[in-house]
């Protein structure tokens, strides 16, 4: 009777097997495709657990079935190794078999092999998982490119170097989420001295000391990127006294290079070991290239600014520099009621010198006058070539009388100057006009006009003298 029930479940074209077991789990009947039971050959009287190892340790399930609490226990996609080494995928069903009174008398155990669909499912699951992994890599790449894009966009919007470097650091840290701290360390191209120029989340100034150690050592391989996975074990930090106190455990350092200049280094650090992989270096180098471009741009910008306000011949300020800086100084003096004076002077014999010795001699004289006069002035004084052989000095914090004394000193210095040109000693004198700021003087142009008028009087009065505007 029972077998006929089971037999109804076994179709000719399906790979199905069954077993019946009594309350002691002893097998009382088996049938179907017996090889599906696996390595243990089914035998009458043997234990059902030999056929269904999935029930071992799962006594709770068996107890629930016998008690009638579990009408059916089903597992899909059970993997079993075939003798051929392949995997069989099986659906298992365990269900109670009741007598006419409804009492559970036996357990029926059915197996169905699902290999045909499992191959497709396997491929599907595999492909889906691989797609997810690829998608994740793409997302990460996208995130990195986005950070690079943002850093590049910042590069295009400002020439302010400090702001740019902080942006590049923050963008690099976004793209490399293991980074906890970052630094841009710049190197003085002339002296080789190094100094931190930008910092990101650096909590303790000492933390990066070992990473920055030896940066001024010319023998170090400073132009190569570096990954330190374990700071304390790193040869880089072997001789660094502060390595014991350093909170940093791992770091990356890439050089900032452009046009064969080593501008400095971009450093990212973390407080745990092995935070960075060698593969992270490529990305950090992209950010370093941006930082290098920013630094090179900033240097170029500074150079252009310097050229724009510098007299090419004498290397002192030109007229533009005089008015840019002079108006600022004038405004400050007006606002604070501070004294400010202007000296305007020109050379008394330049035309004669040019006509006699040539313009090269005149140029040389201008250079020497500017150089010598500069030595007599303070760092805060604004000294400019006003045009031709005319020079202007703006003297912050200086009243009329002090300005007169300075003008006299300059007059003496210039008169004593002798320029050696082609076996000739050239000398000259200069005439000076001096004016000081007062409430009626509304801008730097007005102040210079007054100094020019005084200078005119000095010229008219016999040259080589100082005249005050009053």
């Amino acid at each position, binding site marked *: 009777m029972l077998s006929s029930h089971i037999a109804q479940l076994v179709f000719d074209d399906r790979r199905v097997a069954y077993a019946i077991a009594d309350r002691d789990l002893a097998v009382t009947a088996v049938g179907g495709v017996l090889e599906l039971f696996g390595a243990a050959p089914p035998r009458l009287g043997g234990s059902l657990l030999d056929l269904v*190892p*999935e029930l*071992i*340790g*799962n*006594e*709770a*399930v068996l107890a629930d079935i016998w008690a009638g609490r579990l009408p059916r*226990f*089903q*597992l*899909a*996609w*059970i*993997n079993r190794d075939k003798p051929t080494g392949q995997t069989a*995928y099986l659906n298992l069903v365990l269900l109670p078999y009741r007598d006419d009174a409804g009492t559970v008398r036996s357990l029926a155990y059915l197996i169905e092999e699902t290999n045909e669909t*499992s191959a497709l*499912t*396997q491929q599907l*699951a*595999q492909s*889906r*998982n*691989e797609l*997810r*992994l690829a998608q*994740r890599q793409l997302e990460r790449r996208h995130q990195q490119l986005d950070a690079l894009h943002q850093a590049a966009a910042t590069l295009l919007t400002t020439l302010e170097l400090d702001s740019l470097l902080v942006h590049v650091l923050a963008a690099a840290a976004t793209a490399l*989420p*293991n980074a906890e701290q970052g630094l841009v360390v710049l190197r003085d191209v002339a002296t080789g001295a190094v100094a931190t120029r930008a910092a990101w989340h650096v909590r303790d100034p000492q933390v990066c000391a070992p990473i920055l150690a030896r940066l001024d050592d010319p023998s170090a391989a400073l132009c190569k990127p570096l990954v330190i*996975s374990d700071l304390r074990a790193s040869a880089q930090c072997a001789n660094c006294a502060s390595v014991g106190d350093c909170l940093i455990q791992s770091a990356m350092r890439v050089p900032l290079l452009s046009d064969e200049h080593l501008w400095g280094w971009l450093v990212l650090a973390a407080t*745990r*070991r*092995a*935070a960075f*992989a*060698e*593969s992270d270096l490529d990305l950090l180098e992209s950010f370093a290239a941006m930082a290098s471009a920013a630094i090179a741009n900033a240097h170029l910008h500074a150079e252009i600014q310097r050229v724009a306000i510098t007299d090419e011949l004498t290397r002192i300020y030109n007229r533009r520099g005089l008015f840019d800086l002079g108006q600022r100084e004038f405004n400050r003096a007006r606002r604070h009621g501070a004294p400010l004076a202007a000296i305007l002077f020109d050379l008394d014999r330049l035309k004669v010198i040019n006509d006699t010795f040539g313009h090269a001699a005149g140029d040389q004289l201008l250079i020497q006058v500017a150089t010598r006069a500069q030595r007599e002035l303070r760092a805060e004084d604004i000294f400019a070539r006003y045009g031709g052989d005319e020079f202007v000095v703006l003297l912050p914090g200086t009243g009329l009388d002090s300005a007169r004394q300075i003008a006299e000193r300059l007059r003496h210095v210039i008169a004593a100057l002798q320029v050696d040109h082609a076996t000739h000693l050239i000398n000259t004198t200069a005439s000076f006009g001096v004016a000081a700021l007062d409430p009626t003087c509304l801008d730097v142009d007005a102040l210079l006009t007054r100094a020019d008028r005084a200078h005119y009087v000095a010229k008219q009065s016999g040259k080589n003298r100082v005249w005050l505007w009053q």
Partner: protein
Amino acid sequence: MQKKICLLGDFAVGKTSLVRRFVYDLFDDQYISTIGVKVSRKTLWIPRADAPIELTLMVWDLAGSEEFNTVRASYLRGAAGAVIVCDLTRAETLEGIEAYAADFWSVNPRARVLIAANKCDLTDHFEVNTPQIAHVAARLQTDYYLTSARAGDQVETLFQHLGQALVEAC
């Protein structure tokens, strides 16, 4: 003594590799998604004060794919313990640990759970650090192990400690 334990975790975190290392002392680099469940058997000797006890662990290696989520409860039924696996090189695999634990405990409320932070040999690719794992383990009031199925690091220890806990719970 026989106990059923389950391995849970996202796809490709190394559940099958951990089982292969533990049961057969083998490792294979090739990634093949597990479909459904593979049940393996391993016998351990658990030391006790009087005499060591033989414990047969029925290790259920469950598919990490989402398509098996709906049938996962029947796989979990009757388990005395679980190892929830995350991948140290994929931060998102840590995020799911608490959800796996909740699922597991909803079926087996008194079962013991341990965390395996796998692939600890791939130090160059870490996205998860030890304090992060410790934080999750503390929230679940359980222990964690930094394992490597490839190198065998801590694999035996992990299962031995789980076995010990299961025996002590009896």
